Each structure stands twice: as structure tokens, then as C-alpha cells.
């Protein structure tokens, strides 16, 4: 039996994927369920298991090349001597037939050495391509309106006009960045995919969501004691409950009482989310990712603790599945481990709020008319003013402070 392995769609929104590593070579035996290759998506890498047992007869996609989902990328057969030429032929026949209506056309060719190279064809006139290059416009972002969807000079000129319209202010700033002859020597760092995504998302957030910030300092005595209680009970040191895990629980509890903060602004309406999914920002080598604890309000602290640890581990190894970092409704970011005394975070769109948690620091406080020393933590809430007004943000944060100082109120 011959099985055609295709580029999997790892999430409902995944359109294209890239094999970054093949774990098997042509001629290798692979068991069903065994890792066959690793796919890179927007933010993470995912290991994909083989759907069939048999011999890897042909690898159709080189590492590092992106193709649309469902594109055949390998052929597996029960034995090494099964004839697979008909499969290859049928596939290449289909793939080279021109799709006149499609502006992007994928052509896979089987050459003499049986290696397959992808050639992406975007119908563009040479003139349009040249102008786009001169103007530094990505041809892939332009919609072709010429015959058969070809991108023509007119389309590029439209794109240039739109860009200059949209970025009149920015171009001046860019010019300022670039032309500084007095700065001698420089190094340009090419954007990684994750850095590009971070840049796009956060810039969009700051440009579209009017942020405002509310700060409180909470007495962390009770929560510190709670953390110690958990630590005493945990059997394995690896299952360590962190202060942040407790904050996840507290915030998800508070969100139940303030559904307006657990929402998204959708231009013509505000969507209140039915689930409370808490994103937890995790620093990784070249950026950060935000894995999501789903229905955190319904989970125990130890469950949350376990899940966050697992998600963070996957995030650092770039093994998060798209569904493990999508669908958040509120984010918590914590720089406490770096002894940060206070900071304000940028909202993770399309969410409406983010809580920045700083370090627990011993501070003199006035309690019962006396100055005493207490562990304190600064909590800073950033919210989207299109959705959340000042008084709501203040009451929400006050409730979090209350729960941090008296965690037992969760059981009220």
C-alpha cells in the first residue's frame, strides 16, 4: 500500500507550513506514530507523527521550503519494491497544470535526481516587479488586477500611493533612523519569524488599542504563606507551585466577576468571552510566546501550576501547538524573577487587558498605625480604553489586590 504524506494543517488558520527537519531518510522504515518530520508554523515548531507504517520511499519536500497545507511531501509504502512512479507522475501532472485564476501558483517538479523544488509563481509584469523592488514593496502583498490576476505597474503604483498615504509620518521617522552618518559602524540583524510576529502584533496593539494603566501595591504576606503551604505538600520538587500560578487563579476568579475585562473589541461591537483563558508570557531564546491556560477559573492551583510548567517547557523548546498559544482572553506577564519593582505591559491583541506582576519585595508599610515590614508586590493593569473605563479597571484591580491579600476569599 502506498500512503501519500501531506503538509498537515495544525490549526484551523494554518495555510502554509515548512518542514524544518526530516527525522527519516528515503529508504528508512517508519512506524505509525513515530516522529517523521518537524513543521514550523507562525511561532512554533511541531513534531509530526507518521500516519502510516512502512518505508519512506520518497521525500518530496526539502527542508526549509514552505508549501501550502495538504501539499504532498512524502511517499510511504509497505515495501521497498512497490512501484510509486504512478503516484509521482499523477502528482506532478496535477501540480504543473496552470491555474489561470490563481494569482499564486505552486509548481512542484520532479527532476532527474528525484528532488523536488518549489517555485512560487506570482504573476507579475517585469515592470511591476522592478518598480516594487525600487520602492521596497513586497510583491506578495499586492493584489494583481491585470489580465489573469497579473500584478501590473498600476497595481504597484496603487500600493505605493496607499503606503505613502498611510505612513506619511512614519517615513520621516524612518529617514531619521537611517540617515545618521555620525554613528560609525553598525550591524543589521535580520528579523526572525518570531521577532516579526512580535513586532507586528505589539505595534498593532499600541496603534489601535488606547492603553491606560492602573497600579496597586498588594501585601503579599498571605499569598507567600499559601505558596509555602503548596511547596510543603508537593511530592516532587519539579511540581513547584509559583507565585504566578496563584495569580493566574486569582485573576481568572476576578475575571468571572468582571466579564467586561475578559473581552475583545471588534470595531462595531464588544465580544464578552464565554471562557476565561489566561495567557502566560514566557520568555524564549529570541523573543516571547504566550501559551494559554484554558478555563483557568475552573482549574485548581496545582492543575494550573502543572499546566503552566508543561506549556513553558514546550514553549522554550518551540514545541507549542497553535491551539496551545491561541485563544487567550487575558494575559499575565511576570518579571518578578528579575527583581523588577514595577512595569507596564502592552495588551496582547485581541484581548482587552494584561496584568504586569513585579517582584515581591520587603517594604515598610503602615498597618494598624504602625510601621512594619511586609512582603509587597506591585500589580499594574493595562487595559484597552475602548472597552474598559477607569473606574471598572480600578475596581477590577482592587478586587485582585483583595484576593492576593486574602486568597481564601476565592472560596467565598
Amino acid at each position: 500500500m502506498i500512503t501519500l504524506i501531506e503538509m498537515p494543517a495544525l490549526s484551523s488558520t494554518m495555510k502554509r507550513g515548512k518542514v524544518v527537519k526530516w527525522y527519516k531518510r528515503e529508504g528508512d522504515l517508519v512506524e505509525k506514530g513515530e516522529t517523521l518530520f518537524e513543521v514550523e508554523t507562525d511561532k512554533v515548531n511541531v513534531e509530526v507523527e507518521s500516519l502510516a507504517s512502512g518505508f519512506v520511499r520518497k521525500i518530496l519536500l526539502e527542508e526549509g521550503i514552505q508549501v501550502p497545507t495538504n501539499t504532498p511531501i512524502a511517499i510511504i509504502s509497505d515495501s521497498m519494491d512497490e512501484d510509486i512512479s504512478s503516484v509521482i507522475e499523477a502528482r506532478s501532472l496535477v501540480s504543473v497544470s496552470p491555474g489561470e485564476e490563481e494569482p499564486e501558483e505552486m509548481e512542484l517538479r520532479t527532476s532527474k535526481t528525484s528532488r523536488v523544488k518549489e517555485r512560487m509563481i506570482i504573476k507579475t509584469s517585469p515592470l511591476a516587479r522592478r518598480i516594487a523592488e525600487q520602492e521596497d514593496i513586497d510583491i506578495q502583498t499586492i493584489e494583481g488586477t491585470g489580465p489573469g490576476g497579473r500584478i501590473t505597474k498600476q497595481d504597484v503604483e496603487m500600493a505605493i500611493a496607499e503606503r505613502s498615504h498611510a505612513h506619511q509620518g512614519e517615513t520621516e521617522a524612518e529617514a531619521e533612523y537611517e540617515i545618521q552618518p555620525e554613528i560609525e559602524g553598525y550591524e543589521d540583524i535580520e528579523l526572525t519569524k518570531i521577532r516579526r510576529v512580535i513586532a507586528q502584533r505589539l505595534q498593532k496593539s499600541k496603534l489601535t488599542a488606547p492603553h491606560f494603566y492602573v497600579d496597586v501595591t498588594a501585601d503579599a504576606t498571605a499569598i507567600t504563606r499559601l505558596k509555602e503551604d503548596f511547596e510543603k505538600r508537593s511530592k516532587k520538587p519539579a511540581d513547584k507551585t509559583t507565585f504566578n500560578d496563584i495569580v493566574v487563579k486569582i485573576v481568572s476568579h476576578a475575571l468571572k466577576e468582571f466579564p467586561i475585562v475578559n473581552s475583545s473589541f471588534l470595531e462595531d461591537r464588544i465580544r464578552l468571552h464565554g471562557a476565561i483563558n489566561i495567557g502566560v508570557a514566557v520568555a524564549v531564546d529570541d523573543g516571547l510566546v504566550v501559551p494559554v491556560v484554558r478555563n483557568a477559573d475552573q482549574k485548581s492551583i496545582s492543575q494550573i501550576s502543572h499546566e503552566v510548567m508543561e506549556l513553558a517547557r514546550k514553549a522554550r523548546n518551540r514545541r507549542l501547538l497553535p491551539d496551545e498559544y491561541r485563544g487567550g482572553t487575558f494575559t499575565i506577564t511576570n518579571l518578578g524573577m528579575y527583581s523588577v519593582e514595577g512595569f507596564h505591559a502592552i495588551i496582547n491583541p485581541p484581548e482587552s487587558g494584561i496584568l504586569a506582576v513585579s517582584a515581591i519585595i520587603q517594604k515598610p508599610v503602615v498597618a494598624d498605625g504602625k510601621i512594619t515590614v511586609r512582603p509587597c508586590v506591585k500589580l499594574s493593569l493595562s487595559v484597552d480604553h475602548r472597552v474598559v473605563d477607569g473606574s471598572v479597571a480600578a475596581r477590577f484591580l482592587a478586587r485582585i489586590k483583595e484576593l492576593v491579600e486574602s486568597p481564601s476569599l476565592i472560596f467565598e
Partner: protein
Amino acid sequence: MKEIKYREAISEALREEMSRDERVFVIGEDVGQFGGVFQATASLLESFGASRVVDTPISEQAIVGSALGAALVGLRPVAEIMFVDFTSMAMDQIANQCAKFHFMTGGQAIVPVVIRTQGGVGFGDAAQHSQSLEAWHAHIPGLKVVMPSTPFDAKGLLKASIRDDNPVVFIEHKLLYLNEGPVPEDDDFIIPIGKADVKREGQDVTIIAWSKMVIDSLEAASNLEKEGIDVEVVDLRTLKPVDLEAITKSVKKTGKVVIVHEACKTGGFGGEIATLIMEHAFDYLDAPVKRVTGLDSPIPYAEPLYRAVIPNPDWIMKGVKEII
């Protein structure tokens, strides 16, 4: 400037050059007594006598061979081949002899022969009298190929061809002879060989054509103007040497090109023009180069059929709209 017919422009050019230079003479079938089947040599016999207006038997090889011999001993013959289809009979003299002599004698001999002929579909002249064979001649190094579309160009270019020291294949079109147009009366009016002419200025798309297809292209351009498409029509006038500068200039201006010729498509000169554009102006192209040409078919005798195999203004308009 007076308005005269294309065939009168030809005979004026011949008369003026024969008067100016006694080495110039015409030779061909029916050029004397009959005045040429299209009357392009009418009354030359009366003016210049039988030694300079030579009627020949029906032997194209003899006509061109005699002209070549005369040229090699210092005369400047204008040989007429009644239909371009019959240059096939004289191809050895044209391609192997006329085109090669200057080269093979190390420049010692010159071959100032003009081979006047005419081609194209006319009035039901069928497969052997209707072809457009300019690409054959343009393919031979050593030959110049001239194909004027107006009386003005016909006169100026024929005079230039007669004064040129190289063999020139001068191809007229049977449907142009009665067209009228302004022509200067100046004896020294010359249009240099190798210079194209922008017959109509436009911004949106360039039509490159020659001979009668220039006329059809201009008609298509006026119709397209009503639809808001601004067409430039470049008349090559000379295919060899071709005016690359004029071609690239217009391509850079409009970015879109339709090449129109009556000759059938495969191996037609349009392919050469398209490739030159690719080589010299690729980065200026905003659409693939389009060819509107005759079909790869012998020309039929019946009118509805021959009309179905050669371009007309409608075909040209359609071709333009396909790339605009």
C-alpha cells in the same frame, strides 16, 4: 505637399533617381510596355527608353542575376519581381549571390541592387500570390529589407534604397498602391533606411507594425481611442536593419506591446521583435508581448476564407485589450 497615390510615389522615386543618375535602370516582367502590373513603372519606357526600362521573359532568376551582374560592373539596377512569392525562384541569386558578394570579395565589390516586389493578401490572388515573406529575406545577412506603408515613406525609402550600395529587398503591398497621401516634391527627399516612424503617439500601449498592417493598426487605434485606450503606433518601415532604439523608446514609454504582421506567426518577424524587446527592455514590460499575425495557413482563394486568416482592425483591437 501634393497628395499622390502610393504607386505614383514609387514611379516618382524611380523617375527622379533615373533622371538624377544615368546608372539607374529598371528591369522586370512587364515593367516597360505594360508599365508594371500595378502601374508603378508607368510611362518610364517613353521617358528613358528600352535600354533603361528592360522587359524580361518570365524568369525571376534571370532578372535578379542580370541585375547583380549589372551592379557588379557599375550600374544601379532596380529589379522588379512581380510577386514576393516568386522571389523563391530567384532565391539563389538573392540570398547566395547578391547578399554575399560584398563580403566574399573582401569589400572590393558592391551590389547596389534594389529588388522591388510586393506581397500580402489582395483580391483573391490565392496561395501562390498572397504571401508575406519578409522574414525569409530579413534572415539573410547582407540584405536590407524595407516595407513602407505610406506614399511618403515609399518615395523616400525607395530613393534611399536606390542610393544604397547594398542589396535592398523593397517589399510593397498590393492593397496600398491606390492609397493616397502627401509626398514632398523635393528631388532630394530621402528617408534613411533603418529608421522607424511613430505614426501615432499614445501612452497606454504600443503597436509595432509594418506595411499594410500599419494602416489597419491606425484604424484600430482610432476605435480604441473611443474606448479610452491611448495607442501608440510604431511603423518599423525597415525590418533590416531594425530600429531598436525606436522600439525600446516606445516600450519604455507604454510598457505594453502588440506586434502586428500579416505574415503567418511561426517564424514571422514579430518573434524577432518580441525577443529584441525581451533582451533590451524586459524590465520595462508591464505585460507579455502580444502578437497579432496571420494564421499558419496558406492563403485561401475564397474571400471569406482569406479574410479569416489575416489580421484586421478587429483582431488588433482584441489583441490590445487582452494585455491592457
